[in-house]
Structure formats: C-alpha cells, structure tokens
C-alpha cells in the first residue's frame, strides 16, 4: 500500500466517522464541531485529488465562515441541550484513546494542509505531481491560477450570478431574522397609518385604537414563555 493510498483511507475513514458523529450527537454544538472535522477530512481528500486551491477554499468558507455562523446561531438561540455525555466519567483508557486519536488525526490534517498551503502560496508550480497531468505551458492543475483563469473567462456569467445570489441571500437573511418588535417600530417610523399597520398585523399594544375596536385594557402582555404571538 503506497503512502497516497494510506492517506486516502485514513482521511476517508475520518470523514465517514465524523459525519456519523455529526448526525448522531444530541447537542448541536458538538455536532457542529464534528462537522468541522468532516470538512477538514474532505479538504484533505481534495488535496489527494490535486485540487489544492479548492481545498483551501473549503477550509476558509466551510470550516471558517459557515461553522462560525452555525455556532453563533446556536449561541443566540440558547438551545436546550439534553446531552448526557458531559456527565459521564470516561475511563482512563477511553481518555487516552480519545486524545491520542485526536492528536494523530489533527497531525495528519495539519501536515497535509500546511504542506498544501505552502505549496499553493509560497512556491506555486513546485508540484511535480500536478504538473504531470497539466497541459504543457498551462498552469499546474488545480492551482489558484488554473481555477481563476477558467472562473473569469468561461464561467464569468456564473460568477456574476453568484455574487447577485449572495446579495439576495444577505438581504433575505436580514429581513427574515428581524424580530416582530423591530418590524413594528419600522412601520411606525415609516409613517404607515394605524389601520394599515393593524391590517398587516403590526400593531403595538401601546397604540391607541381609534375606531371602536376592542378597547385596550392595561394589558401590555406578560413577557410570555412562548415569545410573541407568532401569528404572522
């Protein structure tokens, strides 16, 4: 078994095991950390496929940005975790095995990724393996230069469309995640009439009701356990 094969099977096993752990953990924070491990193992598989630039992007975007987003949302939501794993005392052998495999796996990942990044950004073109399958005179297969040339010529329209889609996603996320109270305040500030606001379900209990509707009693609503009324 060559070294390349050994690395592939190690990383494939890491990816599958961490993916299984991701979907089987009860606590979403723990699942997110296992998902990061899956992304790292998949990035190492990309390196074995000579897609070095894509491996760097995978780490930056998935493990860097997206996981921070997930963990922040979990933090904001204050999800009730009912995992009992924290309360179980692991045995000494389990502890040694756990930390030992963590160090070995982390060392593997660091070795491959540091080597790849050094090759990608410090000495581009030093990859003999990639040059073997590259066209003569063309940049090495899978390098930033290679991918970038294609991305900004043949796939330029897709690139621009993606930027538009990201803008739409940002605006959509902000609009969807606004709270009911913020929407009420905005409607009041933008000069919507009270009737229109009531029709849109954006009345505040502080607004006086003019047209003989149900008179507002002094009930401004207890801070209920279920948040706002959820009727939107």
């Amino acid at each position, binding site marked *: 078994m060559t070294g390349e094969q050994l690395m592939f099977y190690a990383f494939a096993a890491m990816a599958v095991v961490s993916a299984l752990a991701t979907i089987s953990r009860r606590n979403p924070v723990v699942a997110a950390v296992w998902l990061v491990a899956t992304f790292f193992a998949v990035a190492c598989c990309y390196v074995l496929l000579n*897609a070095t*630039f894509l491996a760097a992007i995978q780490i930056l975007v998935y493990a860097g940005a997206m996981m921070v*987003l997930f963990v922040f949302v979990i933090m904001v939501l204050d999800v009730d975790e009912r995992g009992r794993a924290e309360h179980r005392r692991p045995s000494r052998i389990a502890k040694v095995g756990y930390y030992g495999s963590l160090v070995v796996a982390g060392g593997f990942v660091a070795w491959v990724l540091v080597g790849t990044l050094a090759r990608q950004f410090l000495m581009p073109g030093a990859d003999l393996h990639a040059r073997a*399958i590259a066209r003569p005179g063309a940049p090495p297969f899978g390098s930033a230069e290679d991918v970038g040339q294609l991305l900004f010529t043949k*796939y330029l329209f897709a690139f621009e469309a993606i930027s538009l*889609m990201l803008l739409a996603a940002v605006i959509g*996320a902000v609009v969807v995640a606004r709270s009911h109270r913020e929407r009420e305040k905005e409607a009041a500030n933008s000069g919507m009439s009270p009737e229109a606001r009531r029709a849109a379900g954006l009345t505040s209990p502080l607004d006086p009701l003019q047209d003989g509707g149900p008179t507002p009693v002094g009930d401004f609503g207890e801070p209920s356990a279920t948040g706002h009324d959820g009727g939107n």
Partner: protein
Amino acid sequence: MLPITHFLYLAFALFLIGAAGVLLRRNILIVLMSIELMLNAANIVLVTFSRMWGNTDGQVLAMITIAVAAAEAAVGLAIVVSIFRARTGTDIDDLALLRD
C-alpha cells in the same frame, strides 16, 4: 494512483449519511448540517471527475456549489432564528404552521 471509484464510494457514503440525518433527526440545526454534508458529497464527485479527465471545469463548479451552500446556510439559519422566536424550539415536527 488511487482508484477513482474509491472516491466515489466515499462521496456515496457521505451522501447517505447526510440523507439519513435529514430524514431521521428532528433538530432543525442538525438537519441543516446534514444538508451541508450532502452538498459536500456532490463536491467530491465533481472534483473526482475533474481529476479523472484532467479538466478544471469540475473544480469551478464545486466552488460555485460552495457559494450556494453558504447562501443556503445563511438563509436557513435566519429562518431558524425566526422560527425559534415564534415557537421556542428547534423541533421540526412542531412546524405545522402552513398546514393550519
């Protein structure tokens, strides 16, 4: 040289695990993570065939997939936040708002 089929087996396994997570778990955050797993499996297939043909197009497509996955995660998590505000929970079986 590694056999190309083994990368495809890996992608297949990851996709199956992601699909199982979507179907079996009820926590909406873990369902979103399982969707990311399935998108990753698709990326592995793209990169594998890109390597097989010595053609970089597959890697460009994989990058576009990553961008789409990022946008999907942002919008999905915004929906989770608004659902959580309304219902105080992340259990997707509670979400029958559209049916009522």
